[in-house]
């Protein structure tokens, strides 16, 4: 039996907007196995981000259950959730969210700081890996978009999470930089990291071994 790193069971998510209720996700069931490389695709507003947030324990489902590494997250306290996120999941967003006043190296080390690790040896190695070995002491403002996203990926990996969730990581990048990022994800996946990424880009889907289509809050295949 393959081990599931995260499972969604009949997950629905409703948002109320004024009088109207938006069914952003409807009874979605999805198992992500260790080592998966999944692309989530679908039209704008179909519920991709909503699903990613629920997978990342950033948001609670309206109904259904989420099981992260064998543990249901419904009953988990906020501090338990924080710990689970910290050790299990790395996030990469379309916006890079680098702290502008910290150097690249410091930005990457930040998640380690919150888990009580003050050393930066791993951050250096990761930045080396993403090709920013010579930019350690630059400020984010001195980097290009592609470089910032590579720094953000290094940061997502610093606590060695088994799962990386990336919501449109190449959305702000040109195709050359997008390819570079995708090659990085492929390499990570080869090294055993499970990756779920949202994209609009058909070229990118080709890199992924499994594709999940979402339409009106439902998985269509």
């Amino acid at each position, binding site marked *: 039996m393959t081990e599931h790193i995260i499972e969604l069971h009949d997950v629905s998510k409703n948002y109320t907007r004024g009088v109207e209720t938006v069914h952003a996700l409807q009874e979605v069931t999805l198992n992500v196995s260790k080592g998966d490389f999944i692309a989530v695709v679908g039209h704008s507003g179909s519920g991709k*981000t909503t699903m990613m*947030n629920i997978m*990342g324990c*950033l*948001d609670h489902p309206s109904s259904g259950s989420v099981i992260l590494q064998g543990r249901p997250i419904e009953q988990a306290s*906020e*501090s338990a959730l*924080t*710990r689970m*996120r*910290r*050790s299990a999941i*790395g*996030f990469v*967003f379309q*916006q890079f*969210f680098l*702290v*502008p*006043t*910290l150097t690249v190296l*410091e930005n990457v*080390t*930040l*998640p*380690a*700081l*919150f*888990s009580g690790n*003050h050393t*930066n040896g791993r951050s250096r190695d990761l930045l080396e890996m993403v090709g920013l070995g010579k930019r350690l002491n630059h400020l984010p403002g001195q980097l290009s978009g592609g470089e910032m996203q590579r720094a953000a990926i290094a*940061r*997502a990996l610093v*606590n060695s999470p088994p799962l990386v969730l990336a919501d449109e990581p190449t959305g702000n990048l040109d195709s050359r930089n997008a390819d570079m990022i995708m090659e990085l994800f492929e390499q990570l996946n080869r090294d055993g990291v499970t990756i779920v990424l949202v994209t609009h880009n058909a070229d990118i889907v080709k890199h992924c071994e499994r594709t999940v289509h979402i339409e009106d809050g439902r998985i269509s295949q």
Partner: protein
Amino acid sequence: MTFFKVALSNLKRNRVRTLLTGLSLAVSAATLTVVLALDRGYSSAVTDDLVNKTGIHLYITKEGCPIEAASVIAQGGLSPLYVEEDILARLATVADLEAILPFKLFAVTTDDGSRTDIFMGVTDAILSMKPDWRFAAGGWLKEDDSVVIGADMAQIEFLQVGQRMYNENFDREFTVTGILERTYSQDDGTFFVPLATAQAMVQREGKLSAVGLKLADISRMDLVQNQLRALMPADYFVLGSKELSEGILQFFGATRAIMIVMVFVAFIISVFGIINTMLMAVLERRREIAYLKCVGAGRLDLVRLITLETTSIALAGSAAGALLGMVLSPVAGNLLRTFLVAYVPSGPIARPEPMIALMAFILCSIVGLACSLYPALRAARIVPMEVLRND
């Protein structure tokens, strides 16, 4: 990499804001230090003058209220009530008194209002009351028209020993017999003349402002005070110099109240300023904070981070302010000297002791830290979902 490093980098993000926040606390700390130094300093300077330095332990007056008495005795204030000279005969019978100084004190403002001269009619007894007095030139009073002048008066009037001095208010001429060395007290600006001369100048022959008494043994103070009360006519009062200085300190009460209000206002302003700026600093990077939560920052981590930011400003600002207060309080003391309506003491008015600066520093740091709590809690309450807000 440490939390402190992250906090510092956040402070660098908006240097002007950080500087202003620190400055507002520095102003509070400096004001507090100055006010405490002045408050402490004035009290001890007055007490020094009236209790510790003068040999006068008790006063006989007709004013029951120590504040009124203080204004008459310390500044030559006008009072319709006079001590009769014949009281001295009764005092002479008291064995415990080492010296008895009857005096007549009055202040005259020049016609153009530019200066107030203080005349004090005294007897030789004053020499045993003021053991610190030294003559810069000449010596003690000799004739009825003799005058001994304080250091300031000698300087202002260009007077030397042996010179004649004319006073237009009283149309009188005096001969300077002595010039006192500077005492940094009211004596520096006083003309000392023989008692009878002073009484004649204001047509109050046989009348005194008050009588100062020096005790042979200060431990018998209560006893002597009671003995004197029994001896004096019913409308006379026996005041300890302590009560007198307390009377003067009550004059100072209004000035003190203003200073305390100043400190209070400075504090309120900086408290709201700091809360407001830190809150802005938090809300302005809520997405970033939300992202920190995504990457594993717990509530406590954020509280720690934000309080660390504020605390760094608070500590730096308070320390700078307390030091500034130490440096400024002598200046403020001299300024206060020129504004004081009450008694101007001889010693320094400001006493910027390290304990005062330390107190101001600690208090302001605590205030700064307290100000950081609300913004810190707001930061902790930001949910990771905020990262996705589209605005």
